[in-house]
């Protein structure tokens, strides 16, 4: 006689059990759940009510062009689209040709970001060219990704293309007097465009400098080691805003008198110096993690110290610190908001300039919430990608 098989009690499995375990596990837990639910629901309703009924989102939609590219002249906006196109093509193709999580993350992020901006432009009062340009760029990233997967490319060619592309992008955006592309002085760059330029130049320029500093700090030569250590510790011990001020006021004095550096380049220099010290500390951590057996094996094989560093030590160290460096890039992206204090009109600066328009007086919260949401989306996606990267690389598990 077999007993009837009953299903497990509903309080042991299923949604009811989950509720019981996770929300109502103990009296204290129950109390907390109730309090939290009340707070969250009430707060959520208040915020939703504000956002839908009272907030004046016109301050964002009417000024979207300012938020995205600042005071860039209308007639020259096509250059921004072309620069984005170049970037999209290369990123997608590299991601496809090389694979590897970092480039794939970057291309996903670029495509998603441009698609979102296209949607935003559609909702705002911007011209259809903007919407089409952004949307097309997002699609281009995917297309070239597929193309890269199929075709592949030799590494050296791609590296040179990237270098050429960077120069081309700078030329496109700034132009020069006397050439077919008219000069758009950097003081007209603003908004999201300026934020990205600052962040990208900052991280790209600070990377080699940081690696050199890290190697110098670990060097056996006392003088070099001392200089590098002092530089790193000083830069890490002072606030970024003082470094930006120093770059703005003191840096020009270090150069010959008739050389005039633009405002934006002074800020880039400040951000680069700041970031280089932090990159140096990250890379130093990676260098310390390399077992000495690697160096000894390299010596046994007959490589000289420079070759050892270049081909054995650095590749491993840099691979190990990629997640930390992604975190650094996120920090740098957020820190670009500080240049508003040195009077550059990046995203936050443009926000405050827009608020100075008499008709939008009092719309402060809307503007700041918009800027926060933009940053949140950018940084959160990158940090999530970084987590996945870490898991994929198995950092710390080898």
């Amino acid at each position, binding site marked *: 006689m077999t007993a009837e098989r009953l299903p497990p009690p509903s309080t042991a499995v299923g949604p009811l059990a989950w509720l019981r375990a996770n929300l109502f596990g103990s009296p204290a837990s129950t109390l907390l759940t109730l309090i939290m639910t009340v707070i969250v629901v009430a707060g959520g309703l208040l915020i939703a009510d504000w956002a839908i009924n009272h907030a004046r989102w016109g301050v964002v939609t009417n*000024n979207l062009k*300012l938020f995205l590219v600042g*005071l860039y*002249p209308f007639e020259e906006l096509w250059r921004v689209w072309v620069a984005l196109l170049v970037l999209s093509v290369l990123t997608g193709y590299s991601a496809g040709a090389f694979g590897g999580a970092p480039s794939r993350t970057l291309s996903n992020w670029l495509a998603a970001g441009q698609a979102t901006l296209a949607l935003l432009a559609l909702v705002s009062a911007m011209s259809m060219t903007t919407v089409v340009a952004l949307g097309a760029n997002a699609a281009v990233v995917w297309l070239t990704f597929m193309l890269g997967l199929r075709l592949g490319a030799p590494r050296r060619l791609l590296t040179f293309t990237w270098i050429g592309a960077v120069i081309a992008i700078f030329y496109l955006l700034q132009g020069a*007097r006397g050439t077919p592309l008219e000069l758009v*002085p950097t*003081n007209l760059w603003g908004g999201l465009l300026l934020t990205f330029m600052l962040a990208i130049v900052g991280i790209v320029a600070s990377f080699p400098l940081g690696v050199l500093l890290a190697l110098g700090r670990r060097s056996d030569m006392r003088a070099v080691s001392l200089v590098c*250590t*002092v530089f790193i*510790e*000083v830069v890490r011990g002072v606030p970024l805003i003082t470094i930006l001020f120093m770059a*703005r*006021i003191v840096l*020009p*004095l270090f150069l010959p*008198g*008739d050389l*005039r550096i633009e*405002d934006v380049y002074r800020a880039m220099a400040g951000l680069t110096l700041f970031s280089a010290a932090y990159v140096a500390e990250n890379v130093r951590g990676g260098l310390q993690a390399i077992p000495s057996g690697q160096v000894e094996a390299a010596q046994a094989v007959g490589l000289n110290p420079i070759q050892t560093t270049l081909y054995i030590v650095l590749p491993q160290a840099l691979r190990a610190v990629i997640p930390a460096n992604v975190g650094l890039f996120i920090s740098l992206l957020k820190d670009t908001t500080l240049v508003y*204090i*040195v*009077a550059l009109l990046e995203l936050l600066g443009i926000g*405050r*300039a*827009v*608020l*100075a*328009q*008499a008709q939008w*007086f009092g719309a402060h919260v809307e503007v700041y919430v918009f800027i926060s949401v933009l940053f949140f989306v950018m940084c959160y996606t990158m940090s999530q990608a970084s987590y996945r990267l870490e898991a994929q690389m198995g950092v710390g598990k080898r």
Partner: protein
Amino acid sequence: MRRTFLLPIVLVGMLAIVGCQTATPPAQTPAQPTPEQPGQPTPEPQQPTPPAGEATPAPPPTGGHLQLIRDRGELICGVNGGLPGFSFLEEGTGNWSGFDVDYCRAVAAAVLGNADAVRFEPLSADDRGPALQTGLVDVLIRNTTWTVTRDTSWGLFAPTTFYDGQGMMVNRALEAERTTTPAQTLEDLAGATICVQSGTTTELNLADQMAAAGVQFTTSVFGTIDETYQAYEAGTCDAVTSDRSQLVARRTTFANPDDHVLLDVVMSKEPLGPVVPLNDDEWFNVVKWTVFATFEAEEQGITQANVQEMVGSDNPVVQRLLGTEGELGAALGLDNDWVVNVISAVGNYGEIYDRNLGPETPFNLDRGPNRPWTEGGLLYAPPYR
């Protein structure tokens, strides 16, 4: 620990810096000829005399801005950017307008012949001194008050284009909530919170004047002009102090301009004018005589409309001014008809004033001392010969 020895190094470094200042006194430049001694049309480059005995850096290079601007093809002008009537950027059109903006154009017209070859750099009050000192701008035309400290550290002041005074603006709507007797004098503001911008003479004058009147108050200091007036309008301050022209100009941007009243006090002298970097006599003379040209043009009755026909005038003063006779332009390093360029681009002083601050504008500022000396004002141009 590596970090511990950095602390004494930092302290020793700071002591060394303090020690440095006793060993190498700063290279002093002798006082430049002030506009109170008019009549030096030929620029004489003066070599700064090094202080006796001590080792000094090599004499700084003189000159260069005029040629630099010509090579660049563009004048870089430091302006306020947030002061309607003086220098203001219209967001939609991207056009700059204002009193200071017109003077930037005048200088560009004098040097380059093209009043539109100007790049405007908005600068906050805190930023303008270092910006001029570090070469970020060629000339600073940003409602800057002429003081001794600034004359010796920021740069040389060209003749005053706007004689102003410091005033106080009170929020009557806020006052009406709590009292029936509105404040009329500084003494009435005892206990008030007053907004002021950092890095201005008004900040210093406020402290001096209130101390002299024996009035207790609280300051609220802000870094930019927008923040200051936004905080004032939001009600975090009871009053805001600045140059009277600035108060009037910013009042027009408020939601309820009639709620805000200027007290009938003038707290200080505020002569506003252009500033050029130190150690460039040639450039200083160019800017100085451009300003004087606008004064002289008004005195002689030359306007934007009639400047072309005035070129054929028989009046020797006008002839010398407009360059039909003599080589005064060349002496400054400019074309001989540079004044014609200036006046046809922006007009004479009166026209500049009326266009930006006059009766047709929302500001309607009375000219007050900003009149030619022939009409009882303070605008006096030295003779062109």
